[in-house]
């Protein structure tokens, strides 16, 4: 009996989780919450939220055409839910797009800067216009509840036929233009998918998907509210859909034959398997099942067909939207959990609004009874608050909001990790340089590095005690510690101090006041410097001023040390090439960057440390 309420509670929790992720998305940028990259600029949010979302909402124009153009009045009872699904679907698309756009506040630029060559421009405009049409088409439904709106309602009802025609025309345009988007990428999209007739296949599959989506939505809400499911109507829709799927199958295969790409079908690459999988679940299984009368007449059978077909076409959109692009190199894009959460949250929001509308307005012929709105229901006792929750509405409100905040808080806790703080820099532990008189320095062991003539450098800087020219700080009891000991990460600054060792029962049992002054906050600023106790830590002639506790990244440390000296030496040695990259990186790969010698440490300092950051000038 609490089917509806439990479903809504789950929806609210998903939205709560989504709210936390959304905060991170707008605070830290796209990189923090998505697996998108320079190779994979479009991911789940475009492939599913936008492209599939638009296609999923195509039930609206298919059914309005059936009822108002082809005048098949028996479908009248499922037109309203179909229009509502379409309306909410398009709103969800717009909301999903706001997450995906890098600069969502500029989305209105589409209205003032026109580029008539861009298919995306056309899609944007059509979606905007069709959203307006859908609003006008659906407006009479809530309006019939309010008397003062009856005039507008009457006017809109008269306008219905032109609106329906405009809606169908607009849908035709942008459903197919979503295919046109990819016409410009003949070298990226896999040849099994790329075709000059992509607009046509997109349009046809959208019709099939619209029929399947109406079936799914009708059956699911029927189950949810224990409503009588309109199987007799859906059977007819299924009967129509099988021809659409058959047509789609024929066009896809025929297109491959015409373009002479059938040879690709037998390969062993994963794309080929993906193509077959997609085609089987998008067209073959639904078509076969729909030709069986028993399947068409059972709710379970129709549901199976609907779920298979919807999954298949969504997969098709995700594939074309980026998954099967060739130029992505070796990297396979899989959406991050945060991307999935946002997607689900957008859908959950749309579903909640759908249920809200369905419970309050006459979306179906028979309005479902909202179990929460039952007036003779007893108040519930809440064990945590040990209080009575009052009437069912209040119970629902209390529970949903609780679910929402708990999910949001869990989201915040899960997000507060390294991925956000390191800003996409993966920790790479720096490794010891290897070799004897000549050292091979490649801290990340990728094979590209610098051959360092250790003995010659020592000799040239005056031999003897000249080690201190470079070795500026040593581990306690050590004389020439390796760089990697303190500069322990390739690209991230590291903590060179071990607090837990100094004051732990297993290490040094130092009392707090031995390093921290009494009466002052115990922070790194007020603590003793390392060399106040370890007086052999820093050689007296060290040429480098040591930043104690914190060590810059290995790459920065090496560049700083070498290039500073090489720049100085270039003048007396009359060798302007001395500070250049290739002087050390001989014939090897570029170490990504050698221009800004001293890294912008403030961006990264302290992110991975146990202590508060050292203030830098």
């Amino acid at each position: 009996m609490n089917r509806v309420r439990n479903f809504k509670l789950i929806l609210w929790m998903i939205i709560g989780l989504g709210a936390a992720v959304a905060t991170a998305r707008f605070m830290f940028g796209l990189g923090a919450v998505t697996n998108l990259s320079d190779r994979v600029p479009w991911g789940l949010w475009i492939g599913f939220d936008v492209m599939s979302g638009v296609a999923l909402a195509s039930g609206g124009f298919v059914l309005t055409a059936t009822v108002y153009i082809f005048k098949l009045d028996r479908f009248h009872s499922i037109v309203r839910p179909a229009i509502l699904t379409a309306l909410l679907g398009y709103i969800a698309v717009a909301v999903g797009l706001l997450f995906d756009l890098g600069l969502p506040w500029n989305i209105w630029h589409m209205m003032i800067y026109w580029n008539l060559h861009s298919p995306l421009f056309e899609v944007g405009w059509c979606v905007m216009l069709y959203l307006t049409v859908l609003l006008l088409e659906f407006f009479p439904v809530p309006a019939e509840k309010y008397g003062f709106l009856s005039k507008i309602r009457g006017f809109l009802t008269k306008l219905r036929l032109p609106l329906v025609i405009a809606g169908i025309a607009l849908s035709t345009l942008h459903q197919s233009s979503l295919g046109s988007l990819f016409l410009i990428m003949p070298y990226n999209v896999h040849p099994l998918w790329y075709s000059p007739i992509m607009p046509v296949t997109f349009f046809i599959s959208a019709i099939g998907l619209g029929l399947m989506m109406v079936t799914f939505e009708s059956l699911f809400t029927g189950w949810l509210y224990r409503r009588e499911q309109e199987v007799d109507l859906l059977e007819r829709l299924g009967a129509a859909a099988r021809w659409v799927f058959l047509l789609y199958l024929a066009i896809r295969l025929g297109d491959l034959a015409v373009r002479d790409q059938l040879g690709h079908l037998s390969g062993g690459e994963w794309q080929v398997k993906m193509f077959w999988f997609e085609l089987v679940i998008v067209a073959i299984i639904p078509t076969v099942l729909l030709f069986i009368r028993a399947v068409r007449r059972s709710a379970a059978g129709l549901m199976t067909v609907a779920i298979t077909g919807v999954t298949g076409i969504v997969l098709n959109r995700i594939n074309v939207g980026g998954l099967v692009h060739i130029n992505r190199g070796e990297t396979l894009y899989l959406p991050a959990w945060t991307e999935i959460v946002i997607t689900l949250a957008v859908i959950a929001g749309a579903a909640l609004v759908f249920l809200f509308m369905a419970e309050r307005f006459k979306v179906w012929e028979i309005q479902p009874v909202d179990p929460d709105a039952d007036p003779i229901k007893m108040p519930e006792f809440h064990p945590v608050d040990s209080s009575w929750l009052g009437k069912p509405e209040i119970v629902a409100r209390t529970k949903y909001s609780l679910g929402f905040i708990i999910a949001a808080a869990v989201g915040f806790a899960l997000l507060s990790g390294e991925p956000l703080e390191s800003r996409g820099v993966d920790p790479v532990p720096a490794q010891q340089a290897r070799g004897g008189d000549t050292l091979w320095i490649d801290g990340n062991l990728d094979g590209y590095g610098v051959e360092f003539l250790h003995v010659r450098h020592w000799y040239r800087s005056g031999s003897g005690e000249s080690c201190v020219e470079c070795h500026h700080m040593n581990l306690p009891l050590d004389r020439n510690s390796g760089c990697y000991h303190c500069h322990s990460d390739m690209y991230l600054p590291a903590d060179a101090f071990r607090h837990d060792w100094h004051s732990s029962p297993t290490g040094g049992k130092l009392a707090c006041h031995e390093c921290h002054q009494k009466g002052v906050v115990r922070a790194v600023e007020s603590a003793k410097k390392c060399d106040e106790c370890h007086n052999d830590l820093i050689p007296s002639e060290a040429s480098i001023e040591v930043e104690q506790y914190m060590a810059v990244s290995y790459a920065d440390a090496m560049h700083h040390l070498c290039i500073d000296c090489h720049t100085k030496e270039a003048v007396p040695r009359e060798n302007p090439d001395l500070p250049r990259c290739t002087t050390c990186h001989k014939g090897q790969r570029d170490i990504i960057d050698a221009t800004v010698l001293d890294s912008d440490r403030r961006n990264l300092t302290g992110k991975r440390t146990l202590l508060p950051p050292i203030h830098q000038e």
Partner: protein
Amino acid sequence: MKAILTDTTKCIGCRECVIACKTRYKLDNSIPRRWSAEDGLTARNWTSIIERPDSKYVRKQCRHCIEPACVSACPVNALQKNKDGAVVYDSSKCMGCRYCMMACPYGIPRYDWDRQVPYVRKCILCAEYISDGKQPACTEVCPTEATIFGERDELIAEAHRRIKANPGKYINRVWGEHEVGGSQVLYISDIDLSFLTYGQPLGDKPLPDRTASAMHAVPYAFVGMGSLMAGIGWVIGRRMKNEEGGKDKPEGEENE
């Protein structure tokens, strides 16, 4: 129309061009991020040197196509081809859809994935400098003249002259002369450069042409579909009226 010609046989891989570019545009230090591609181009590296086997170096940068796919794809005109032919970016117009990144056949545009306010980043051929008659930073500093700047026609002629003079040394092809309508960054080389397009040969047909036919069909499709629907609706409605003849008003319009 201005152009850059890069002769990979002359490149010694010193990366002075990379440094000059970063210095001129005050680009931040870039460290390998999760989202970086392996070719070295990032939102903070607009050009990079790719090392190929046998110490061959190839400089990668925006090709400044004559008919650029990115310009045609951008829905808000944020990417434009200016009078010198440089494909420049107007960050105030951009809405961040990243269609340009998808559309580019060379995979050039990069994105500020870690920024709250991210922009598309790529080489802009030092547009404001070349319009003043100056050189781009990269060609200015190249110590071996491996990458040179000039008028496109002259550079193509020069490229063919070099190939002709040294037929054994070069592959007989000027990369960028015809591919996808030609580009303003040209290469001559002794190694195959198809790795710049992920091993795929590019045709000569400009990419914008491929969407153009679909875009031209838009008004016809709209009017056609609209009138088709109106026509069918009218015919069916009339037929139903005739069938029901003497009966009451047909259901449909007012009933709902």
